[in-house]
């Protein structure tokens, strides 16, 4: 479990995260949303130990990420938004790194690369951004780490690859794994998420399971603007609205709308 208490971080005087407290439980797929510059990538780097906390505490299964202990590093895999990759083949990189991860599944890697139509013998440097992302996603999933942090994983992926990505993540999920996906492309991942967290510089604006959100709110598309709507946006197909759920019926969450509603309230 990841526990964050009163976390603050600043880049040379500019506050990025200020007194954030939250937790990520095991067995869930989290969607980490937030406007540009609120510190989603920074939070990922702090969770991986790539940045050192200025104030506050991060605890991941008893480890402090900034210590970069091997026991901790073997539990976590992080893919940044602009993954470039080492100057070697996918095969060499995967075989070199795999020995550190006890749950590495070589067959899974081959199967994932095959599904993504990527040749294992190709070098990362010879691949396009989308292909590099597919390759590293395959490696990340095959390492079977307990925590998987994906920063904008669908950026650069074409439409079939996005569908394949959703399928793979859904297949890879189990009760011992936590996947945190930071994205602006919410439509690409909305069916995957079972928990949504909306981040702001000063606080966590929303930290709820999809089930709780569905229980609390109702999402509708109507031709007329609903009178009882908490938030409403006019679109080509009519009015997309959020209202309080009074019927106990679950509706499909419109994450973009939810994000805009939550942000409008702050």
């Amino acid at each position, binding site marked *: 479990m990841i526990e964050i208490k009163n976390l603050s971080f600043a880049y040379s005087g500019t506050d990025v995260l200020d007194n954030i407290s939250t937790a990520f439980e095991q067995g869930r797929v989290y969607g980490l949303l937030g406007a540009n510059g609120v510190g989603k990538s920074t939070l990922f*780097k702090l969770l*991986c*130990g*790539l*940045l*050192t906390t200025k104030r506050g505490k991060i605890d991941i299964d008893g480890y402090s990420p900034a*210590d*970069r*202990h*091997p*026991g901790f*590093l*073997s539990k*976590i*895999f*992080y893919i*940044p938004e*602009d993954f*470039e990759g*080492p*100057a*070697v083949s996918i095969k*060499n*990189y995967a*075989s*070199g*790194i795999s*020995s*550190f*991860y006890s749950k590495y599944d070589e067959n899974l890697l081959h199967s994932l690369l095959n599904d993504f139509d990527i040749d294992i013998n190709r070098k990362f440097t010879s691949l396009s951004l989308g292909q590099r992302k597919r390759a590293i996603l395959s490696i990340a999933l095959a390492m079977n780490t307990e925590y998987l942090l994906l920063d904008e994983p669908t950026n650069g992926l074409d439409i079939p690859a996005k569908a394949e990505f959703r399928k793979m993540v859904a297949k890879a999920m189990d009760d011992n794994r936590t996947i945190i996906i930071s994205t602006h492309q919410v439509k690409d991942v909305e069916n995957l998420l079972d928990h949504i967290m909306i981040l702001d510089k000063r606080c966590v604006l929303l930290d709820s399971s999809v089930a709780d959100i569905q229980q609390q709110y109702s999402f509708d598309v109507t031709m007329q603007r609903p009178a009882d709507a908490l938030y409403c946006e006019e679109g080509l197909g009519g009015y997309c609205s959020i209202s309080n759920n009074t019927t106990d019926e679950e509706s499909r969450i419109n994450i973009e709308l939810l994000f805009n509603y939550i942000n409008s309230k702050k």
Partner: protein
Amino acid sequence: MNEVFDIKRLGKLMQYEVINYIPHYFKSLLIFASVIAAVWILSLTIEEPIMPGGRDELVKVLFVLAITLSPFIVYKDMNNRKKGYIYAMIPASTLEKLLSMIVLCVVIVPLLAYAVLTATDLLLWLLSKVGIGTFLHMEFYNPFTSIKIVDDEYLLPHIYPVFDSIIYFVNLVAYTIMFNTIFRKNKVFKTILFNISMTFAFVILTAVIVNITTPEFWENLLSPFVEWLDEKTDVELFGYVMTTVRCLTVLMSMAFLYITYFRIKKVNY
């Protein structure tokens, strides 16, 4: 799990680094080898055979360059803000990462550089025995023990030059390893600039000290040692100087590696 050191984990890390970093370094070595080939082509053009001594010097210079630059090539991206996270997130401890870095740069890279450079020379010799003189047998490379006491019967025990070579060599590599972890971009240029700046600072400082002190000051300062120095033979003094230099070199290497350790541990991405 031992979070500080595990021999198996160190082995895995070294294996990872050899697979992932050495092929890239090998390509750089081919550039160094191409210099030998270029000189060979030049010798054919001007019909002036390059003597084995000249080739030996050329190979030595390229060898020193290849090993001095090796940390900048092998671990180029280790602290890069975009690419460096791959290195930082390898599940090995800081100590293991440092040790692997030392083994690669002090043992594996020099052996590879030696093999590639001498093999190039051998290949060219086989291609044109006339063009570049006789086959070069490179003797044990020992660039740091050239201090000799003229007209003195004193001989250094055979082990000493080898030992000295090793400690000076490790010192040189530790120095470049440290700068590779300190600078993120233009590492070679910044390292050279730093060295030039330090040399200037040292010269200016020495000049200032010489200017503000009098010969009497130095006489008073050194007078307790003069008698002691007079009692010693040149050989004994040489021994003291060498021992002091060796100790300082080892201490400096340890300091460089200590800084490197904390840079690896604390570098932010």
